[in-house]
């Protein structure tokens, strides 16, 4: 699979997974598994950041169409895609050769979890602020934390599926 195809492949897989598999699942009626956040987080510094930014917005918009929240997820995912290069620089992940994907298996457990959890939390807080504004309360933050923790678990598992094989992208 060549590089440009990979952007669209992961876009499509995460979109279908979110809409068909994870959107209907609400653990205990309240926890939402937000797997689509993984899309911008898959790529390292070598990836075309403009393309990732644009595709993140498009993915968010598609998710919005299916959850009656037009503008909410697109804005949040766009924000994540925007801060991604800065956060990557902060974590000092070194890209391996010319591949565009982060190879999670080569990082330590704490590096992977802290990177994913930080991004998921930022995304969740962004959504909460946009959705509830000044009415934001402790209950919302608690549910946001639950969403983040369970999304983190799911995303860690899903990220394995995208793990590049040696000598590929």
């Amino acid at each position, binding site marked *: 699979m060549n590089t440009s195809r990979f952007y669209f492949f992961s876009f499509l897989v995460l979109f279908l997974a979110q*809409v*068909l598999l994870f*959107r*209907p699942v609400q653990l205990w*009626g309240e926890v939402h598994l937000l797997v689509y956040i993984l899309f911008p987080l898959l790529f390292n510094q070598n990836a075309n*950041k*403009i393309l990732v*930014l*644009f595709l993140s*917005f498009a993915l*968010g*918009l598609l998710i*919005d*169409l*299916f*959850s*009656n*929240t*037009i*503008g*909410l997820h*697109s*804005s949040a995912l*766009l*924000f994540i*895609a*925007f801060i991604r290069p800065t956060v990557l620089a902060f974590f000092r992940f070194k890209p391996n050769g010319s591949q565009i994907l982060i190879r999670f298996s080569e990082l330590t457990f704490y590096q992977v979890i802290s990177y994913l959890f930080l991004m998921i939390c930022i995304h969740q807080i962004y959504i909460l602020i*946009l*959705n*509830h*504004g000044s*009415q934001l*309360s402790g*209950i919302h933050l608690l549910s946001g934390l639950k969403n983040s923790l369970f999304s983190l678990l799911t995303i860690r598992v899903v990220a394995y599926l995208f793990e590049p094989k040696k000598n590929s992208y």
Partner: protein
Amino acid sequence: MQNLVHFILKYRFTFLFIVLQLVAWWLWFSQHVFYSYAFSNGTNAIVGTVSEQQATLDSYWSLDKQNADLASENLRLQAEILSLKHQLFEQTDQIDLHSSETNTTFIKAKVIGQTKRQGNLYLTLNKGTADGISEEAGVLSPKGIVGRTLYVSEHYSLVMSVQHQRSHINVEVGSKPWIGTLEWELDATGYCSLRSINQYAQVDIGDSVFTNPYSTYFPDQSFVGTVETIALKEQDQFFTIQVKLNQQLNELRHVYVIQNALKSEMQTLENQIIDEY
């Protein structure tokens, strides 16, 4: 000019972000856009079909619970039939079995989507104008009241549930009965507040709450829920009553839309007062 182009190209990542972010915010904060989309969303052909398929899949997961609910409803209906038969037997000549006096039709529909926006809960149903549903029609479930239709397209409808800050429903409680308004406060999932009940009213915890004849959307005596807590704040003439809804909306699958053929006629008549006086 060349400098400007150079500047934009240099910071194209940031510029693209700002432009797309403004678009997203505009979509999100503009109410008009939301409503037109919310409507087309739950209701447009592709999304509607996918939602419908998902709802079918969902209903398999909750079949056990649905079965139990149906069985208990069946039992209640059987008991009702028995008692009605008994009444009929006792006073055959006094019972009017002709039920068209209310001119109401019940249309069965399936809940295919739930949306929360700013805490308010909306439901999408798989029936629309083609099935005889109009806007502002009441929605009931076998266990209690659900809400009223807000927008209706040919095959789908969007319902504003009782868990909505703009929902106000006329209800009654207790033996007298005492009349009040059922409202919803943010985040009180499964509960509503009963307002305008005078502090001298005799209301106890566990009392049943029903709709009353003044309710435009629901038939008289539709079950709402039971009184959970009663409080009286200082220098307040009215009780603060919390009502536990009998129908928990997050597990809702099947509903009935109440279509009153004469409602528009009634409203036209009532509106004349506003026009004339």
